[in-house]
């Protein structure tokens, strides 16, 4: 070991990457801090808010949003966007919940598979048109939003799935808990963990970041962009499909307007969670936390006694605040890195 040859990996000089990592991690902790403050304040005003029931309710509500947000985050990371998630959730919710009425005694696992299948099919179509057709995803998924919702409405007709046709074991899923934590939240936490692990360690996962930060460079580096983008859309579709079944379990009564407009809330959650809207940076953990934050705010406002008509305005304001702060951090970071580069050069 001839030590003098290699410069010591001094924290400051080692890599600008480290600074970026620190800042990004701070971004995630920022959300957690806001969450903590929120829970604390709401809890002080209304102690019911920090009770187990309320927290379980929030976690259970968040599960659905977080599930969709993970898929959406993966799509947004590649500098694309999936506006069709709300329609996929709606379609999957109806088709899967309807299975109980048409096939008596069908197993719940099978119903989840049906939802997954619906989501996969939608994701494959959207992904294929976007990736193979090389057309902007904003337009394609906007069109798919209409098409899937239209198909949903045609299938549903004037019908509606009523809670009475669904077995109690299905409707109880959102309330089921394991050691006090909702099953749904645990399941979604596992999904988030898998997605985070995949994005951080797998080559194809890292590719999503590369594509999002510079599609041109990614192409020149030999990354199969079409394939990766296609995969991201398929995953987003699949997760939305599963979320549709969760939706059915949560709301029991499913009409053709189920999950209408969900896509914007999901994108808001993802962006609040620190995923850059033009891709290349962010994490699925952040996206899930963003969903949790938005849900917590909704509940907190309710519990504190602020009329629920304010929730929409406040979540819009929060989204704008989040991206404005991100922009500030980003500029600071860029300046810091530049200064560091100058110092290294000198």
């Amino acid at each position: 070991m001839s030590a003098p040859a290699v410069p010591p990996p001094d924290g400051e000089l080692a890599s600008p990457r480290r600074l970026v990592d620190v800042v990004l991690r701070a971004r995630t902790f920022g959300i957690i801090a806001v969450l903590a403050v929120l829970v604390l304040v709401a809890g002080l005003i209304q102690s019911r808010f920090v009770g187990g029931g309320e927290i379980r309710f929030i976690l259970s509500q968040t599960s659905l949003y977080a599930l969709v947000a993970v898929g959406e985050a993966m799509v947004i990371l590649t500098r694309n966007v999936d506006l069709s998630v709300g329609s996929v959730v709606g379609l999957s919710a109806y088709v899967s919940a309807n299975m109980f009425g048409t096939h008596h005694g069908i197993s719940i696992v099978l119903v989840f598979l049906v939802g997954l299948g619906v989501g996969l099919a939608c994701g494959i179509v959207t992904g294929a048109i976007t990736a193979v057709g090389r057309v902007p995803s904003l337009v394609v998924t906007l069109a798919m939003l209409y098409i899937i919702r239209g198909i949903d409405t045609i299938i549903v007709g004037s019908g509606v799935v009523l809670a009475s046709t669904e077995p109690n074991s299905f409707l109880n899923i959102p309330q089921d808990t394991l050691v006090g934590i909702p099953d749904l939240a645990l399941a979604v936490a596992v999904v988030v963990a898998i997605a985070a692990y995949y994005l951080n360690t797998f080559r194809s996962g890292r590719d999503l970041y590369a594509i999002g930060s510079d599609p041109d460079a990614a192409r020149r580096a030999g990354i199969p962009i079409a394939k990766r983008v296609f995969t991201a859309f398929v995953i987003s579709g699949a997760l939305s499909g599963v979320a549709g079944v969760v939706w059915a379990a949560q709301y029991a009564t499913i009409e053709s307007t189920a999950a209408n407009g969900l896509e914007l809330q999901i994108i808001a959650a993802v962006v609040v969670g620190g995923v850059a809207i033009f891709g290349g940076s962010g994490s699925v953990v952040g996206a899930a936390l963003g969903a949790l934050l938005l849900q917590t705010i909704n509940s907190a406002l309710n519990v504190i006694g602020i009329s629920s008509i304010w929730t929409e305005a406040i979540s819009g304001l929060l989204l704008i605040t989040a991206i404005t702060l991100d922009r500030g951090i980003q500029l600071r970071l860029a300046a810091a890195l530049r200064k560091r580069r100058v110092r290294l050069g000198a």
Partner: protein
Amino acid sequence: MAPEDPPLTPPPAEPAESSQPVFPESVAGEPPGAPPPEAGRAGSFSVLSARMGRFASWEAALVVALVLVFALGVDSSSYFTSSYNLFTLCTNIGDLALMALPMTLIIMVGEIDLSVASTLALSGETLGYLWSHHWPMGAIFIVVIALGMVLGAINGFLVTKVGLPSLAVTIGTLTLYRGLANVVLGPLTVSNFPSFYTNVGVQNVPGIPFLSYSVAFFIVLAIVTGVVLHRTPFGRSLYAIGLNKEAALHAGIRVQRVKMMLFVLSGVVCALVGMLYTFELSSAGESIGIGFELKVITIVLLGGVSIFGGRGTVLGVALAAFVYAGLHSVLLLSNSFNDNDFQVVSGALLILSVLIPNLPSFAQRGRELMRRRAARASSFAADDPGASSQPPTQGIVT
């Protein structure tokens, strides 16, 4: 497969021809006029000119589509051309078409405004709120227009001064403005507007039995927008910004200021449409215009405006609005279709509108792939001394 295909170095001779057969119906009308003056330029310009030719024919395709839709309408129901039906068609599309105009300009410079429907709602609710508090209509007009300016300026400020992406900003303001709109009136509905105003929704423009006021406003505003966009330096600068922001900046165009103006303009137009729409419904209440932003964007993109900016015409957007409205009317009149089918059809149209312009590049990619495959085959063949004459034949066969 993607890594090596070269987007900027196509063989000079081909593109001009290759893009033509894709539009059989429009080619019939175009070739004598458009292509020759541009086809003269060589090299990479031919790609550009081929593209321009293609977009010039987009309007022709829309005219064909419009004729087809109306032919279909006349064929399917004698009721289609009744002035009542045409009037309904006009009232259904007028407001969307009006909002499509500023949206066209904003998409032209490579931005987007998703908050249009929420601006409309907030303006309508404000109108209702102030009217229910006995404000004079003149003062309300001024307040609502000012409100539209402020709402647009907030978008513009966040996009141009703070430097945020308009997609994220306007998703935020979509939610924010809609949320505020919910708060203004709460669950109340205001509907005691004087009939002088609410008549805009039920009466036609005097003398023209099927023309609704909204469409009359649209035609006037579309002409103004068209002249400004296509005939003034300001309008041309929007194309420059959309095609290459850096170049536009270096050419002395005040990119940020222009974008700011467009967002403010969008806010004002949407506020005016908000009042118009409220009068048409003759009531201001919860959740008006939900989802309009998507319909407006659909019309703009159907009109041939590129989502990446820099391409499109006002004529195309106007034609697209009537194709959209005509199709809606036709489907509603035929017994076998309804509103939901229209959703599917308009979505499919939207996908086609972005896929079709890409078809020439598919053909080119296909040929490129073949050529590369042939080249690879020939390089293998080169190892084999006997097969040196093979490559050319393969190239021709494929």
